[in-house]
């Protein structure tokens, strides 16, 4: 499935194909409701940016403003530094894959892919050549004469992709490109999409509410909530160093520990959480400050008898589940409440059982301080 088709016309000149996109203070209001609130960000040439957020966070609205279908209330959209806010969608030269694909049902696959070329009045020979190359690129060469209704969901998605790429667009916009597909196909197409992006080197902007998709595909992820940009960065940075409680909870799972900074030293800081003193390598705040720490379940280890750790708490298993690759444990502690622990099955020193007393440990780097969402605003 991931085998690369022969390089077609689309791949040629890939290095020069990317364009940089910039959003400056983009806002959109519907009546009194603010759907998008002063969003500013920059996508460099050839990068893959994903807008990620819960339902209603304004992802589609931002994408539609980039595409030109929705006029921003305030702010500007810039392509390579040129203001294109007032340009109608058909003059922007952006490829777009719509949610649900929006293939033309009265045209064959080849006619669908040829559509952007036809409206650009490209000659017949050149058109056919480009359509062939685009269909090769998405590995649908044998399907040119079918109607969209005769294709599977994954094939339709690839036709939509071919149609969006065939005219060498400045920018490729994707609105939930994989959400209509089942899990396995989605994983396959994620890989294909990523390979395609690398191969043609164009700038992609994608929208999703699937965090896994966002993490696996993107160079940059923009996390949105209530129309606001909460954090922008590479997937690893967002996951490892979430800025707010929302980001930590939305990207993956997280335990939250609240405490007060007791001392700050070169070796680390001490945070007092209930009766437990937590060691933090970084400096979560000045002494006396109340801080919130995010601790990922997979960074907590189950300590063996007599084993030590920089941070350790005792508790008992309140609930557990076997997930194939590992166990998910809920451990009730007296100071820190219930902590969720993700344990790889091969590293579980015990067979989990409800009520079993355990000791949990994690390093001084494991937890990261995050802001309460209200403070971040």
């Amino acid at each position: 499935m991931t085998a690369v088709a022969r390089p077609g016309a689309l791949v040629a000149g890939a290095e020069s194909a990317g364009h940089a996109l910039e959003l400056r203070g983009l806002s959109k209001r519907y009546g009194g409701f603010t759907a998008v609130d002063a969003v500013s960000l920059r996508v460099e040439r050839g990068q893959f940016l994903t807008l990620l957020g819960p339902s209603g966070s304004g992802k589609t609205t931002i994408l539609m403003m980039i595409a030109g279908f929705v006029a921003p209330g305030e702010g500007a959209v810039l392509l390579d530094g040129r203001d294109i806010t007032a340009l109608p969608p058909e003059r922007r030269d952006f490829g777009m894959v719509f949610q649900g694909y929006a293939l033309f049902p009265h045209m064959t696959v080849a006619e669908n892919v040829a559509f952007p070329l036809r409206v650009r009045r490209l000659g017949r020979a050149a058109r056919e050549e480009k359509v062939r190359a685009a269909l090769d690129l998405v590995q649908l060469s044998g399907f040119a004469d079918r109607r969209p209704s005769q294709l599977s969901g994954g094939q339709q998605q690839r036709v939509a992709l071919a149609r969006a790429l065939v005219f060498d667009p400045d920018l490729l916009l994707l609105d939930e490109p994989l959400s209509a597909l089942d899990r396995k196909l989605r994983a396959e197409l994620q890989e294909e999409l990523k390979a395609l992006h690398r191969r043609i080197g164009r700038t992609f902007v994608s929208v999703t509410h699937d965090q896994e998709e966002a993490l696996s595909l993107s160079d940059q992820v923009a996390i949105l909530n209530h129309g606001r940009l909460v954090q922008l960065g590479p997937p690893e940075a967002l996951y490892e160093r979430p800025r707010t409680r929302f980001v930590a909870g939305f990207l993956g799972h997280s335990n939250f520990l609240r405490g007060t900074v007791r001392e700050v030293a070169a070796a680390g800081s001490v945070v007092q959480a209930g009766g437990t003193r937590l060691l933090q390598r970084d400096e979560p705040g000045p002494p006396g400050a109340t801080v919130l720490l995010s601790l990922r379940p997979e960074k907590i280890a189950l300590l063996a008898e007599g084993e030590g750790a920089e941070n350790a708490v005792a508790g008992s298993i309140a609930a557990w589940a076997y997930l194939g690759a590992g166990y998910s444990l809920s451990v009730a502690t007296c100071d820190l409440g219930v902590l969720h622990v993700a344990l790889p099955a091969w590293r579980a020193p015990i067979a989990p059982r409800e009520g079993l007393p355990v000791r949990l440990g994690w390093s001084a780097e494991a937890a990261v301080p995050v802001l309460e969402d209200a403070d971040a605003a």
Partner: protein
Amino acid sequence: MPRDAAVLPAAAAPRPGLALPREAGWWLLLLPAFLLMTALYVAPILQVLAISFTEPTPGLGNYERLFTAAGVQRVIGTTLRICAVTTVVALVLGYALAYVIALASPRARRWWLLGVLLPLWISVLVRAFAWVTLLRRQGLVNEGLLAAGLIEEPLKLVWNEFGIVVGMVHYMVPYAVLPMLAAMREIDPRLLAAARGLGASRLTVFGRVFLPLSMPGLVAAGVLVFIVSLGFYITPAILGGGKTLMAAEWIKLQILDLVRWGMGAMLASVLVVTILATLAIFARVVDLRRLFGGGH
């Protein structure tokens, strides 16, 4: 499916004592309606058909007149011409209206629909006379144009084919709007946005995406309007002023005034056959719909 097939032989075997299978009950319920339809609808048509072959003398004499009598040919020509023009004009106006309604906000759409459907509740007689008052020599239109200095003398707007077409178009536009609106409402608006996003101007989006996708509705509306137009009687009688004869009025003339039953029945039969033939062709054309919208 296989389960049904397995059950079938058992069910089909006649059970002693119970003469009728269960479904027969439903058919019995439908029987009175069926008999009524046959008695009031099919039988008279068959009788008309019979008369067309037997009056005044048995044979194909009446149908021969289709090819020999200039009067009959003129009536058929006039009917086809007026119906064709009516259909085209009603389709163009109806399409524009349906387009506006389909793209309107839900609130505005309700008002538009009400406006389109309102004329249907007004008697066709009233509407025909209303057009006469508007279009006659001293009518509002001529007076207005004269007053504006646009014309020197009153235009002949009524008691001719023009008047008939105006009246018929007015009657037929709602019938044209409804099937087209239904087809347009089925078009996914994202397709139109997608087309623009791919570089098509508004005009191209209309020509290459919207129009082809609304074509089934256009065809349906065309057939409906044409068929209904063929049978128009009151509107042409009033707005044609007896000078322009269409099929229905000519048939009435033959039967009631000239008592030439055979000729009247012949043209009536031709009309029925034409309508059935149009419908048969149409039934093939609607299959396009499957082809287009099969994906959803």
